[in-house]
């Protein structure tokens, strides 16, 4: 019963929301109210997550755990942002500039690291995975589309070749369509399983 209760609640909630979507505009206020409840719950969950993060790192600092210096940075940055934002306000230009000065280089550096890791993975993928359909198709497609997006090739004088290149560039869209259809079907089936309580049987 303890396992079935959440599933029953989820199924009833889904059915109510589905009915509310169909019986518009009579059910519009109730649907908005239910969505507001969900927003409040998710906001509270976010607060709990922030509190848990801070408490965990404070505990790391208190115990002197390995890498606790990073925990000190995190706690100090969090408290500084909180206090400054509370004191100066979110629309203070100095506060906004200070945060932006830290935030933008930090995320750019992370993105550059991602690019580096991707390069390393591109080198290793053939050594680790060997020659297979997956690796060969990955390598060829990466080479082709990287080169096409460089902008070096211009085929305006040759309409046939230009059409061929544009067809090649449309291939990712084909894959994206398949991906989206798969996602939609999966979400639909998952919703049906939840509505009919089939998720409880799996446990």
């Amino acid at each position: 019963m303890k396992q079935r209760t959440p599933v029953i609640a989820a199924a009833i909630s889904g059915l109510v929301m589905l009915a509310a979507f169909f019986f518009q505009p009579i059910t519009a206020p109730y649907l908005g109210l239910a969505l507001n409840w969900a927003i409040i719950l998710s906001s509270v969950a976010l607060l709990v997550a922030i509190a848990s993060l801070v408490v965990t790192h404070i505990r790391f600092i208190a115990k002197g755990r390995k890498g606790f210096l990073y925990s000190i940075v995190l706690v100090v940055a969090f408290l500084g942002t909180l206090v400054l934002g509370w004191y100066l306000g979110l629309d203070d230009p100095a506060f906004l500039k200070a945060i932006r000065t830290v935030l933008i280089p930090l995320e750019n550096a992370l993105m550059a690291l991602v690019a580096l890791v991707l390069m390393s993975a591109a080198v290793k993928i053939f050594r680790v995975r060997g020659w297979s359909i997956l690796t060969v198709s990955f390598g060829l497609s990466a080479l082709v589309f990287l080169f096409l997006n460089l902008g070096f090739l211009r085929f305006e004088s040759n309409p046939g070749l230009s059409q061929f290149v544009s067809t090649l560039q449309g291939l990712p869209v084909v894959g994206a369509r398949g991906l989206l259809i798969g996602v939609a079907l999966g979400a639909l089936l998952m919703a049906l399983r939840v509505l009919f309580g089939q998720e409880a049987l799996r446990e």
Partner: protein
Amino acid sequence: MSEQPDDLRICPHCGQENASHTMRCIRCGQELEELFELEGFETTGSSDGEISENEPTPMAEILASLDESPLLSDADNEDANPDVLAEIAENQSDSDKESQDWLERIRQRAKEEEDAAGELAKGAIAMDDRRSQEGRKQVDEAFDEIMRRIREQNEREKARRTRRVESDLVDENGDPEWLRRIRELHPDRENDSQVTQVTSGMKDTSDDEWTEEELQELLRREVGIPETPVEEPEQEITTEISTPSSVEEGVEIVSTIPEDEGIQGEPAQAETEPEVIHNIPDDEEEGFGGGAEDDIPSEESAALDLIEEPIQTEGELPSVTDGETEEALPEEETEANSEEKISEVESENLPSTEEPISTKEILPDLLLLKNQRERAQVFSEILGQEGRRTIPVLHESSRQSKVGRLVLGLLLILGVLLAILIGPSGTVDLPLSAPAAAFAKNLESVGSGDEVLIILDYQAATRNDIEPLAKRALDILKEKASNVRIVTSNPENIWLAGNLSQTGQVPDEFIPGGILGYLALAVGETPSWGEQPIDQVFSGNPDLFSGVDQIVLISDSAEFVRMWLEQVSPWKPEIKTSAITTSVSAPILLPYHDSGQLQGIAAGLADAKALDVEPQNLVNQRAFQVGMLLMIVVLLLGMIMKADEDAQRRSEERTQ
């Protein structure tokens, strides 16, 4: 004949009336003796009823009565006492008179009746004959069953005794088989005192288990191999190496067995016993199932299965050279005491499996089938791989890989830096895409005073791909004097929104709850009983979508745009929606443009041309191109390295 009338017979025992032809009372089972009584003939024993007819007379009494019978004793006792003979003669004369009387009656009766035996007598005799035949048959069957059991038990006992004798085989020096094996394995740690102890332990433990010799005998019986001559010393040595497990078993129980029970066996048999390592098939054929194992008791066949394992792993046994055997043995025997040797034998036998011998070295001395050899090879390889990594680790951080990654990173940074520092920034000259052109056209359609809702949802890391386009779009909208309202549900955009406008403002509204907040605002209506909780966070009009003509999604997340189009837009179908996104997200969103859900898509710097973004507002295009070229080179490098490794491996295989 009988005194009773012919139709009914009354039982003298219980009074039950029986039919005239019945021989026993139907109530109490009492035999109706009167039917068999003849006139003038007195039955002594049976009439008394003391001895039942069903009770079998003991054989001893019968023999004793025969011995005491005067008829039999006459021939034997020729020199008997004359008094006794006279007495016997008198008795004989009396009995002769009586016999003459009843014989006369019988003869008279026979004359009167047609059949001399009489009808009732004939029936009784026939029934007695039948009953006696049935009883005799049962007795014979029971006797045969008992004899069969006795024979089987005797055969089992014989087989058991034979095995015990074979297991206690000793050589011409009086050394048992197991001792010779230990000497071969550990020639430098031998002691005579230990010999006796281990012998006794070995003897008793091997009573109920199959030994090597028994298994050899079984294999010979199965395969039909002639016995190996004793004169081959190499095979003998090989055999001794093969079964350390039996030695260990003997050592383990040595303290519980007295020493004087030592060696009991037949040396002659030990000499003729062949020394051949065998490997009895266990599951590849039905040999064991239907062959020699049928003659083995169940518990012994189970022991046989246990013994098969060490036989299979002979390739893993410690290597012992033939030369280092018995020459060094006498010197070393006097040095150590027995207990130390036992423990050393155990301790040196057990870890010896860590250094397996190649199976090929032992194969010439083994009698293995092809299938068994392959299995032994596989087993040896498995044991050899113990503790080693068999699956390559993807993230193995070796020093070489770290250096390679460092070189790659330095190459990338150096190339981009050179591209930035040297020469002009360059421009991207790509053909204008249809979604980007549609976006520009949709933006141009915005009239003066139109309400445009800008939704921000991007990260600082992608700002270089988005913000030039977003800035230009906002400038166009400002030029058209449209009413722009910028909102976000991403806290990061509170600070990033200042990059989009010259005044450094924050977004007009912050929508809590992410996509749920937008959905609640799109779906929900203000109820009659009051306002929704989310309405309280707005500084301006809480109806976010009222009067909005255009919505521009500025997001680096295709997932966010997809959720908007699938969840929020259906509730506001009259509002046109377009998106500014990154090049990475563009392929996912293009189907929505094809379906008409998105009016246009401006994706990254490649579409900057559609909005006429000034080159100085874009990032260095030459650095971008250099970075892309480096990625292509690295990818090709990975392919070439893999091809080179494969070529080297193939050449090594050819040379091998």
